[in-house]
């Protein structure tokens, strides 16, 4: 972390250079220089490995110019064999050092490349965070995601190689060439004679490949866009019946890509061919020229062999260099294409996302707009010269026709639109110059379609409190410190995401536990508390981590039981609940539930899978129930076929009422036909796979609900026997959470744990009466808060998908209020809520906002009644400004929106 002028600099990855080489150079000078030095050192040893074979041949084996025994370094005496081994030992050593250095250089290079990839990805994401908000209308996440993930990945592999690889290969090439020249200048010339030709022709061929590469990327991007369109417009495509046209369009595009790709392939393979051909021609020169020289005695055979070996070694780096050249072109292109997408106009200056060293000063004071203009693009003006003053703590409604400027003004106040003219000052501070973190800490904003992160309700509530880490640990674990240091080396932010970031103090809470009470109050205000309570009732807890809650729920179960029957029974609940009794068949539960008498933990024991579960079948068989089930299944199938055979497949009734899916109905019909009673009246046996199908049907039967008249007292008695066998069977332990009147069932919801039974079918208004009785009980037992806390753990799903649109808006309101903002900006925040709820949420929000300045853009002008001041915007200008009563009476746009 760097502090500069009081600002904590969030590493922004720097400017994105247009050239990948400049990007790599800028962030890897030191490493690159180090690698260069190592490469140079490695060449010495490499040269030795080239030169030694010659000595081994000439001196060691042929003994030319040597007299044995010979002395080495004045220390050892060697005979010829000994000397040969000595030279071999030296050779081995040189190979070892050369290999070791190479390995080390490669590892350095790898680290360098991975760091650069990390830096590039971080820089891209950092830019996404700073994109001007309107830009997101032009780019889709479908375009951005592959760029940051897949496209950059390919570039990343190259970045480590960008300088080091060609350097290494060139150095090797140079070393070999030097060696050859030292042996014999003519040989040297022969070896490199063909390279200039290659060096000339390859870039020529490559140029065209480069152009084609660009075309390819564009064509593929276009296809991604079209796929996005097809997916988005699938209903139009289907209803317009244009599948053929769409297919033809895709065929055309894929044809273009095919042409480009094949063209590239051919050109690349031509380059390869030329290379290979020329490389294979070179030995020809060696054999002819070298052979000639050896015969003439101007060259030793050892030198020729060494030269041949050296040249063979030469083809590898040369090939690498050519491959590198192609890869470099490719990478540069991809890099360019990605980076171009990440330089939109009017990005938020990077400095505004830096973390200021001092805590947020707040946004109290009057809001003064002077001559504010907002432009969507050069032509479209959303706001024009707006000048206003809003007093601190004021309640201001922004009204007017949709698109008249009220939305744009709300967004400008939250800096989601950057003003193109004039200024917005809050308490004397220019909004355009405030860091994001300061605005985020003191300004709440809720838009028309609030987003929620895939986490719990609680996590989403505290999202507005996470501007900076609030408590850093006194001593950081060394491994963690190294982890963060590595982040800094790759230009990533080195703040620890695992530290405590939630500023509970801002919400007015001492700690996480105290926050729950505040959350409860806020959710109550925005009319979401009841929903969260219901989430809690449907939620599950782990009794091991929350023993007190589990205990309390068990107490509630017992108390609820007393209300159902006995001296204190509540007459209104009579017969509405059938509790789970280990010794009795439950008429309101399925046959499967009656058999298992527990909640499945293993999916193999879910009702739909049960008929194929071997342990389950074993118990049925042992109790002689298998045949009973198959026969009962046959009867169920008969009824289902009779009831549903005339309905078209896909009719909603199948989903809602049938035991057999529409697609399977014919299968069951066939089985019934196969096993139809013969002339003697006895049905033939159901065999093979048909058995599992039939056996599965009765499992879903609820006697009280389906009233098929198939379940009699004898059957119930046998099910109870099987139930006992199940509970005792080894195979079911740990796979089913059995219903135990005295134990908390972790696999079932809190609601089911209290109820510990089934609401009876056939009793008028049973569900509502039972639900109300349960709530009353929880209230009197003081358990509401506990269950509410479980509700706060409810996972809202991706984008809040598990919440209704109204719930999402209400949660967003609570989130904006949780940070106790100085300014609260609401932009059509209530529109998604049902009419009655809108007013409750509005009133609750205004009450909870306390002394904050509240500015709300609203489509429903009647709601402006709750605000002291109403500003009417039309055509991007202030049309009217006054109190509700006055504006409602006066002729003008406000009156029109009221009546409309």
């Amino acid at each position: 972390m760097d502090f500069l002028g009081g600002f904590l600099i969030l590493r922004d990855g720097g400017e994105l250079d247009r050239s990948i080489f400049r990007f790599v150079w800028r962030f890897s000078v030191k490493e690159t220089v180090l690698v260069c030095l190592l490469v140079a050192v490695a060449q010495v040893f490499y040269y030795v490995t080239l030169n030694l074979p010659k000595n081994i041949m000439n001196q060691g084996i042929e003994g030319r110019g040597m007299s044995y025994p010979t002395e080495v370094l004045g220390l050892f005496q060697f005979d010829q064999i000994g000397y040969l081994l000595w030279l071999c030992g030296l050779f081995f050593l040189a190979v070892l050092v050369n290999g070791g250095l190479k390995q080390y250089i490669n590892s350095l290079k790898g680290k360098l490349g991975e760091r650069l990839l990390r830096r590039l990805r971080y820089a891209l994401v950092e830019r996404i965070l700073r994109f001007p908000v309107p830009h997101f209308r032009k780019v889709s996440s479908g375009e951005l995601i592959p760029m940051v993930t897949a496209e950059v990945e390919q570039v990343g592999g190259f970045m480590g190689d960008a300088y080091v690889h060609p350097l290494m290969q060139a150095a090797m090439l140079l070393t070999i060439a030097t060696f050859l020249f030292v042996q014999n200048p003519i040989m040297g010339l022969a070896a490199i004679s063909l390279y200039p030709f290659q060096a000339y022709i390859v870039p020529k061929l490559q140029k065209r490949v480069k152009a084609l590469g660009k075309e390819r990327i564009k064509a593929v991007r276009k296809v991604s866009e079209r796929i996005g369109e097809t997916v988005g417009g699938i209903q139009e495509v289907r209803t317009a019946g244009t599948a053929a046209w769409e297919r033809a369009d895709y065929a055309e595009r894929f044809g273009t890509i095919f042409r480009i790709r094949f063209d590239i392939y051919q050109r690349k393979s031509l380059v390869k061919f030329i290379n290979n051909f020329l490389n294979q021609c070179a030995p020809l020169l060696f054999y002819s020229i070298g052979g000639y020289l050896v015969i003439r005695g101007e060259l030793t055979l050892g030198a020729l062999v060494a030269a041949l070996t050296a040249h063979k070694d030469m083809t590898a780096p040369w090939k690498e260099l050519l491959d590198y050249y192609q890869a470099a072109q490719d990478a540069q292109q991809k890099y360019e294409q990605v980076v171009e997408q990440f330089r939109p106009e009017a990005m938020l200056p990077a400095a505004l996302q830096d973390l200021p060293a001092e805590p947020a000063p707040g946004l109290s004071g009057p809001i003064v707009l002077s001559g504010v203009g907002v432009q969507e693009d050069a032509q479209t003006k959303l706001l024009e010269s707006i000048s206003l003053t809003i007093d601190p703590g004021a309640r201001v409604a922004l009204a007017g026709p949709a698109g008249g400027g009220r939305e744009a003004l709300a967004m400008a106040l939250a800096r989601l639109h950057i003003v193109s003219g004039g200024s917005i000052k809050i308490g004397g501070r220019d909004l355009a110059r405030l860091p994001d973190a300061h605005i985020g800490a003191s300004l709440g904003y809720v838009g028309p379609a609030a987003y929620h992160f895939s986490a719990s309700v609680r996590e989403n509530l505290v999202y507005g409190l996470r501007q900076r880490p609030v408590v850093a640990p006194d001593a950081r674990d060394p491994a963690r410190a190294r982890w963060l240091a590595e982040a800094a080396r790759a230009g990533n932010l080195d703040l620890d995401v695992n530290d405590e970031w939630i500023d509970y103090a801002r919400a007015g809470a001492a700690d996480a536990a105290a926050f729950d009470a505040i959350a409860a109050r806020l959710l109550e205000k925005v009319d979401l508390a009841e929903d969260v309570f219901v989430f809690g009732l449907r939620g599950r807890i782990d009794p091991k981590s929350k023993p007190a809650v589990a205990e309390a729920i068990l107490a509630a179960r017992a108390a609820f039981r007393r209300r159902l029957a006995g001296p204190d029974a509540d007459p209104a609940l009579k017969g509405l609940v059938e509790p789970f009794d280990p010794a009795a068949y439950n008429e309101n539960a399925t046959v499967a539930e009656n058999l298992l008498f527990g909640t499945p933990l293993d999916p193999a024991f879910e009702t739909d899978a049960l008929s194929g579960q071997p342990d389950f079948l074993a118990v049925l068989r042992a109790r002689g129930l298998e045949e009973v089930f198959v026969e009962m299944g046959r009867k169920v199938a008969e009824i289902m076929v009779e009831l549903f055979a005339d309905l078209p497949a896909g009719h909603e009734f199948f989903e809602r009422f049938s035991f057999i899916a529409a697609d399977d109905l014919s299968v069951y019909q066939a089985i019934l036909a196969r096993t139809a009673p013969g002339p003697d009246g006895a049905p033939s046996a159901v065999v093979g796979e048909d058995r599992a199908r039939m056996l599965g049907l009765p499992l879903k039967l609820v006697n009280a609900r389906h009233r098929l008249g198939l379940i009699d007292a004898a059957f119930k008695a046998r099910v109870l026997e099987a139930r006992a066998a199940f509970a005792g069977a080894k195979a079911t332990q740990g796979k089913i959470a059995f219903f135990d009147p005295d134990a908390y069932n972790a696999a079932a919801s809190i609601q089911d744990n209290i109820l510990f039974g089934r609401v009876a079918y056939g009793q008028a208004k049973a569900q509502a009466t039972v639900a109300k009785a349960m709530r009353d009980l929880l209230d009197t037992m003081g358990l509401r808060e506990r269950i509410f806390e479980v509700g706060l753990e409810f996972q809202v799903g991706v984008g809040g998908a598990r919440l209704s649109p109204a719930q999402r808006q209400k949660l967003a309101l609570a989130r904006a209020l949780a940070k106790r903002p100085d300014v609260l900006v609401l932009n059509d925040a209530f529109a998604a809520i049902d009419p009655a709820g809108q007013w409750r949420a509005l009133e609750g929000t205004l009450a909870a906002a306390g002394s904050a300045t509240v500015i709300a853009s609203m489509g429903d002008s009647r709601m402006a009644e709750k605000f002291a001041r109403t500003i009417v915007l039309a055509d991007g200008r202030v049309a009217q400004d006054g109190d509700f009563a006055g504006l409602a009476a006066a002729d003008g746009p406000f009156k029109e929106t009221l009546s409309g």
Partner: protein
Amino acid sequence: MSIKEETDALKRIPLFAKLDSAKLKLLAFMSQRLSFDPGQAVFAQGDSGDAAYIVLEGEAVVSIDTPGGPIEIARLLKNEIVGEIAILCDVPRTAHVRASGTAPLVCLKIEKDDFMALVNEFPSMGVEIMRELARRIVRSNAQLRQAMAAKSA
């Protein structure tokens, strides 16, 4: 009581009498069997009509609110249907219906949406119902004529 008996009960109701028994069985299977304690309301005047009820056991009284207090206008016995107008057209309940007597009232509740879906699927059902409604009109026209004749006489 099983679905078979409920199908028989449906059969005895003129509105459904001509429908083939497979469809009636499906209707019975989809419908909920509900029990009301004596005195418990089945529905109240002014409620939106979402279902028709067929009495399987027990009895119910039908009453309407008047300025002078509620007046009982009819009693429903076994195999009688109530609220059928509501599942054919969107009108609020025109009367109160509550369980009476000493034994619980057991009804078959036919949801409007399910019923309409069934009619949409099997147009012959719709034709049968049209016939029954037409018969009712003929009957009330005849009653009206009689009443007019009695008045003018």
